């Protein structure tokens, strides 16, 4: 059974191809203005890379914000369920998933049977998500990919208190003009994201093992700050960014 999961996020589109229980390939591209051309292209590129034709694909499940726009999907499933399933693929006894995506972050509690028991998401505000980090990286003129490593060299974390991404950006700019070290500012940014995440998570109940997923999960600074604040061990799969797409592909194989 050749199954595909397509996760159309606000910033990136992800794909996972599975043959039975084997993960054949994953891929990530920017969603951009036209989500349809983004998923069509990533689907084609990935199948080409695998030297497969679209006609051999048995099932497709679409997830993410753009899930309803994937006309060829056999079904749509929410990113909540897909992330839960994807995390179980990585760690079968996972009980909590923290996913930090482009414009939303979510916490998913999984019961002993592997079902979603509860979920909470950020509301009305993109602070504490990937988009927030992107804006800050631009203000600091740092590559987003270097954010994590740089923050590990911080001597302290600067206080970032604004709730709003735009105001937080001005706060960062004023810290720069005061001569605050870039590393400290980055550590402060991570801390502010983590504080928001933790207050969101507190609305539910975190249980171990905990898996961190989403595009922001690879950021070592966030991983460290989150583990410290929650006082727990956090696991990050190599496939963190495509975890939702993997979950969708697994579900597609099981329809």
């Amino acid at each position, binding site marked *: 059974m050749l199954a595909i999961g397509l996760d159309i996020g606000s910033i990136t589109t992800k794909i996972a191809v599975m043959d039975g229980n084997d993960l054949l390939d994953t891929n990530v591209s920017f969603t951009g203005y036209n989500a349809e051309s983004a998923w069509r292209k990533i689907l084609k590129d990935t199948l080409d890379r695998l030297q497969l034709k679209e006609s051999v694909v048995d099932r497709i499940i679409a997830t993410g*914000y753009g899930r*309803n726009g994937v006309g060829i999907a056999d079904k*749509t*499933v*929410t*990113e*909540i*369920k897909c992330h839960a399933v994807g995390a179980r693929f990585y760690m079968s006894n996972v009980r909590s998933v923290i996913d930090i995506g482009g414009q*939303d972050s979510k916490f998913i509690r999984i019961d002993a*049977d592997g*079902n*979603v028991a*509860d*979920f909470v*998401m950020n*509301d*009305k505000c993109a602070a504490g998500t990937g988009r927030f980090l992107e804006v800050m990286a631009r203000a600091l003129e740092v590559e987003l990919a270097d954010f994590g490593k740089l923050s590990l060299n911080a001597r302290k974390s600067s206080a970032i208190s604004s709730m709003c991404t735009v105001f937080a950006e001005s706060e960062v700019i004023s810290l720069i003009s005061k001569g605050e070290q870039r590393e400290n500012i980055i550590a402060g940014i991570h801390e502010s994201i983590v504080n928001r995440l933790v207050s969101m998570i507190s*609305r539910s109940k975190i249980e171990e093992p905990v898996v961190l997923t989403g595009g922001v999960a690879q950021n070592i600074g966030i991983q460290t700050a989150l583990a410290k604040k929650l006082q727990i061990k956090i696991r990050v799969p190599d496939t963190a960014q495509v975890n939702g797409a993997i979950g969708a592909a697994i579900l597609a194989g099981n329809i």
Partner: protein
Amino acid sequence: MSNNTPNMPSLFSFFRKNPGLYFRGMKNQLKQGLPMDLLTLMGDYIKKTKKADSSPTQLVANFTAGFPVEFLLAFDVWPGFPESSACTAGMCEITQPLIEHAEGMGYSRDLCAYMKTSVGAFDKGYPYDFGGSPVADMYFGTNGVCDTHTKWFENEARKHGRPYFAMDVPCVVSGSDEARWAIDSDYIVAQLYDLITFLEQQTGKKFDEEKFMNIVNKSQECSRLYLEFFDYRKKIPAAEYFVFMRVFMYAVFAMWDLDAGIKYYRNVLEKMKKRYAKAPEKIGKPEKYRLMWEGITLWYGTDFYKELEKKGAHVVYELYTESSAFRRKKTSTLDETFRQMAKEFTSATYILEQDRRIPFIEEKIKDYSIDGLILHANMSCRPSAAGMQDVKTEIEKRSKIPVLILTCDMIDPRAFSEGQVRTRIDAFIEMMEENQKQKQDQILSGGTGQWQTINR
């Protein structure tokens, strides 16, 4: 309207100035798919309010939710209800510019959007059908439901130079005992006597106890019939859903014509009796998921509720609509009526303190065979949004159903992010689906006996 203030603008002059808005409003009203008799009933209130406003002899009052309208009726004062007009604007989906207009007048983003819609609509000269309300001869507010009411109407009365009567309802906190109740009750009853004096002064009429009791009897009958309808919502499939109920409650809430209200509810009940006498498969749409909603409706959310229904999820019970019926107990003397009113002001479903709110919800979940609970954390209404997290945690534990907190606003569409809401709703439905599957499996495998039986 007896005083020399300008009347409300007519619908025609509004239409001439804003044809686009007019058509949009009408279209959105109609897409709710409400039955003709209900639309006529709602239209009757609007028509009569306008008539009262333009009459040189008819006294008009504006009152807030929770105020005992029977007193106004006993003095032949027309009950104007600006909140209902704001709700109408919500159904028309035209509130955003009105709210923004009020914010431009200095009202904060965090304040109640009913108030801002009403203030904005008045200032922009919108008619009653589109959120406006007449300048009343007198204003009546109570903090029984929320403190916004008393300040909102105090401000309106001051702005228009009109007399204002505010009724103070003590807040009942968890753990209050009977002795506390008795003190609160005496305090409220004393204010009801003050209210009579106030109305006597304003109208120049003497209080007619017999007439008042007659009106109270009718309002009790109206409430009784209205609540009887809820029995048909317990049935599967339920008699009606939220989009219907939020307008169905108008007659029992605004009480402008109790005879018409009683007649209408009787007719509807008669129809229900016939409908439910039929074979179950002929009664109505299949219900995959029966939902309970706590908090105010999304007035602009007709499409939202329709989309839920397309997914097989129907809101079959709301505390909000049930709490709109007062005068639930028969009374025969004035003192008994006043004491009963005092009891009702302090214990309306909408304002139940957590100790009683949670078991109340738990009981309704059983009564209405509920599969999932949506808690509307209403950005502009603190009384209805407070304590949602505790309700969620407790109900999930006690009733073993998924509970979703949805942060939106009742009539401010700026607080409704479609993509975000859709993801939450879809995930909530997935959880209900899973829950049903588990229950089914338990039943098939003999079960542990801890789940309720699925009867559909």
